[in-house]
Every structure is written in C-alpha cells, then in structure tokens.
C-alpha cells in the first residue's frame, strides 16, 4: 500500500486544464522532487492530491483512504503541508508559529499538552531555532523564516511531508540547510515530496524525480533513469549537457 497515491488526477478551472491524468505515489523513506517549469501545474497537483481542490476527477488515497473522506485534521495528522512561504499576518513569536504545526492534534499557541510541547521543542531544536524561539517572526531573515516554517511542518510529526518550493528566494547556503532538514526527516523514516525549481538541488537530494509539464506528468523515476538531455529540452526548453548526475545548463532553446 502506498502512503499517498494519486490516480488519474485531473483538475480544470474554467476551460483551462491545470492537471491532466496525473498519477504518482509517495512512500515512506522516499525523497521525491517534483520538477517542472512555471505553470506546469505542480502546485495544482499537490493541492488536488491533498484534497484542497474540490472539483477534480480521479482519486487520491492517503494510507489507503480516499482523501475526500478525511477531515482536514485527520489529513493533517498524516501529511504535513508546507505551501509556498508567505509573510505572516501578525508579528507572532517563533515558538507560537511552530506550535501551530500541532493544530491537527488539537493544540493552539499557549495551549500545548506536554506531548505537543515536546514535539514543538524537538522541531525547534532540529531546525536550529532554539536561540530564536522567543523572537518575533517580523525580525527574522528569509532563511530563518524558512526554517521556522519547516519546524512548523515537522512539529506535526506526520509520516509524510509535502513542501512547495521551500527553498524559493533563499541564498544557496540556506537552500542547502532547508534541504538537509528535509533529508534528515526522510532518513528518520518519513516520506517527503518537494516542489523544486533548482534541478541541481533536486539531483543532489532526491531519490525520485517527477517531471511535469503542461499539467501532465512526463516521467517519474530515479534521477539516473529519468535525467537526460532530451528530458531537459522537452520539460524546460533548455539546452543542457548531462554527465552522470551532473547537469550543465547552456541556455534557452
């Protein structure tokens, strides 16, 4: 049984098809990178698979259960979702934001059971935020804020994680730090699906790549199986040289 399986997912908005007949799976211990150019439908695909889109066809199953039948809290306990990072509405405190990751366990900032508090502390520790725990999020740098959101997702202690461009707008050092955090999450036995724009980063960390374009999944498999000059051409429209798992991009076609 797959932990998360999307079968023939199709999502349309008006007369535009955002996702077309997409099937994929995510297992524990897997680090999946979802790749594709802007507008390929990556975010739409994960939103559909999470049951956040209502009018879709096909089926998404989370641990064998239809995602439609799960309440938002039940879903969130099994799969943590880290959408593209937006600024917070209020200048909240770091620890309170991480505590929101325990929402699906019935907790709220300032109302944490000892179990919740432990999970929050562990996540803060794992993401190297101990010294920032009492800071307001408005005073953090982009990289620090990215770690806060990672900690929030980890605090849920869900067996699966979906992250949408967690490294966007971060400098290389912070991109690596976020990817290392997700890597250690996967190494502890959980599964992660991460939307990435950076091919090099995906090759470095992912055990499986899903290539998407125009709402369709063109290929899915290990980097060694699916990476090729032709693939980069057809998906991204770029000229590239490929040598093993090394890629050099030469320019647009």
């Amino acid at each position, binding site marked *: 049984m797959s932990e998360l399986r999307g079968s023939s997912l199709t999502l349309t908005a008006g007369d535009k098809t955002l996702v077309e007949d997409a099937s994929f799976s995510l297992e524990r211990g897997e680090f999946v990178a979802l790749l594709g150019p802007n507008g390929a439908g990556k975010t739409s695909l994960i939103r559909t698979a999470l049951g956040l889109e209502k009018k879709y066809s096909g089926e998404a199953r989370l641990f064998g259960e239809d995602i439609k039948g799960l309440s938002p*809290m039940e879903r969130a306990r099994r799969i943590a979702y880290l959408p593209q990072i937006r*600024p917070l509405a209020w200048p*909240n405190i770091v620890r*309170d934001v991480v505590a929101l990751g325990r*929402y699906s366990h019935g907790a*709220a900032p300032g109302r944490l059971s000892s179990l919740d508090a432990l999970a929050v502390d562990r996540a803060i520790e794992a993401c190297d935020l101990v010294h920032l725990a009492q800071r307001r999020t408005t005073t953090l740098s982009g990289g620090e804020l990215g770690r806060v959101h990672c900690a*929030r997702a980890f605090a849920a202690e869900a067996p699966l994680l979906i992250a949408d461009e967690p490294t966007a707008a971060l400098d290389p050092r912070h991109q690596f730090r976020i990817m290392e955090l997700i890597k250690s999450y996967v190494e502890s036995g959980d599964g992660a699906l991460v939307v990435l724009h950076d091919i090099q980063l995906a090759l470095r960390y992912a055990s499986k790549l899903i290539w998407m374009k125009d709402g369709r999944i063109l290929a899915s498999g290990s980097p060694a199986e699916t990476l090729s000059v032709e693939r980069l051409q057809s998906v991204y429209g770029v000229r590239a040289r490929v040598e093993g798992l090394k890629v050099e991009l030469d320019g647009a076609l």
Partner: protein
Amino acid sequence: MKLKGRISLYLIAAGVAAIFAACLLGSTPMTAPRVYAALIGDGGAGDEIVIWSIRLPRALAAYLVGAALGVSGAAMQGLLRNPLAEPGILGVSSSASLTATFVVYYGIATASPWAMPISAIIGALIATALIAFTAIHTRSVITLILVGVGVSSFAGAAMSLLMNLAPNPFTLSDMINWTLGTVANRSFEEISLSAPFIVSGSAILLTTRRGLSALSLGEEAASGVGLDLRRQRILTVFGAGLATGGAVALAGAIGFVGIIAPHIVRPFVNFDSGRTLVPSALLGGALLVLADIAVRLAPTENELKLGVVAALIGAPIFIWIAMQRRVIHE
C-alpha cells in the same frame, strides 16, 4: 499563558471597578457604602431605584455592548488578518441599525419585543456574510475595506431615507438615537432581550479561536495544518453577526470599540489572534463603561450620546493605526 491569564484578571477587575464607579457617579453622586448597601438590597428605597433601575442596568448595557463589539472586532480581524477590520468600519453596525430602524419605523417592533433585536441581527448577518464573501474572492485588503465602506454608506443612505420619510418628530428622534448610539435609560428587560444573542455569538466565536490563531499563517497554510476554512468562515461570520446585532439592538450603532480594544490587547498576547478574543471582550466592556461615565458627567445641556463620544475618540485612533500599518499583503 501566564501573561494572558494575568491580563484577563486585570481586565475583569477593571470592568468591575468601572461598573461600580458608574453606580457611584452621576447627577447625584453617592458614596461607596450607600451604593454597596443599595446593591445588596440594604439601602434606602430611593437609592435602590437609582442603582437598580437606572445606573446599574445602564452600566451593564454599556459593558455588554463593549464586550460584544470587542470580541467581534477581534474575531473579524483574526479571520480577515487585518487590524482595521471592525464591525463599524465594515458596515456591520450600520446595517444592523438600519434593519432595526426599519422595523421600528413600520411598527413591526410593537408586535413582539424580540422583533427589534432579531431584525438588528439579520442586518448584521447580511453585512458580515457579504464581507466574508468578498474576502473569499479578493486577496486585497483594500478592496475589502472599500466594500465595507460601501456597505456602510449604503446603510447610511437608506437610514437617511427612512429619516426623510419619518411620519412625525418622535419617530425621527427615535431614529436619530439609533444612529448615534446610546445606553441611556436601558432596563434589565431590554438587556435580557439582547444578552442571549451577545452571549451565544461570543460563545461561538470563542469555540473557533484556535482556527483564528492558525489563520495567522495565511489561508493556504492554515488549511495545511488542518483548519476547516469553510467552517471557520461561517462560524466567525455567524458569531460576529449575532454579537454585533445584539449590541446594536441594545445601544444602536457604536463604532471603534471593536478596533481599539483588540489593538491594545494584541501585544500582551504575543499577537496571537486566538488569544485576543477574551481580553478584547473584557477591555471593550470596561472602555465603554468608562466612556459612558464621561458622557454622563460631561456638563452639557443635552446629554452627549455614547456613540458620538466613541467615534470622536475612536476615529483618530483608527487613522493612527492605519498610518502605522506596514504594507505586507499588497
């Protein structure tokens, strides 16, 4: 947690003190022992009438109204993620007073004592639902505020029409009282007609405060951590509509309490929307009782209306908050 527990305790004490002060002060000041004796039913007959029929119901009405507006404002700000969202600004109070006036004007109010509070609540619910609906379809906070201003203007215009068509000066003066907002001459009976709505609306809002905290992350991430967004929207709109409608039924349209109370409270609860609700209600109640004392003591020939004073103090604070606000969403 500790901080919040303490701030709520202080605010409860402040509320009780304000209500007691409201009993002490007035055209004939009374000493504390006399007020206390009258409160426990051990005073002179005259004192007991002044306290139990005039001052105490008036102070309690002010407290209830302030608390309802404070908690509604805090909840709407949490839902819309905007410190400027408030029942008055968004036209909820004016819509409620419009429907209430309409019922009074057409004499339906004489049919049942519940007609007026219920019509005020219907007006409030229509406006809150419209605002929430707009919020779903636009990400722009400015659009949202403008829609609120539109709702408010429309309700104001319709109100003017009703005044224009008022059959006699008494009806007209009644209507003016509604738009200005006052808790003068309120009885326990009138309080008992509004209180159930205010209490149940506030209770609904309190049950959803966890979701308001989660909304700090934005709607997408809040759904991600397990928030049922649809349910949260419906309950917040419904709760705020009930509480604001109940407040308007009791006192007419009183603005700005719902913006000031949460604004003061927020830093004490680390800007966590969920935790602003209770202290905002407590502070809103205490503030309005104090404002009403000021209204009663002001040496003017005609008694000032509470809503007028609230707006005179509140509007400049609103402008100040708006100017302080950093642009994060646009």
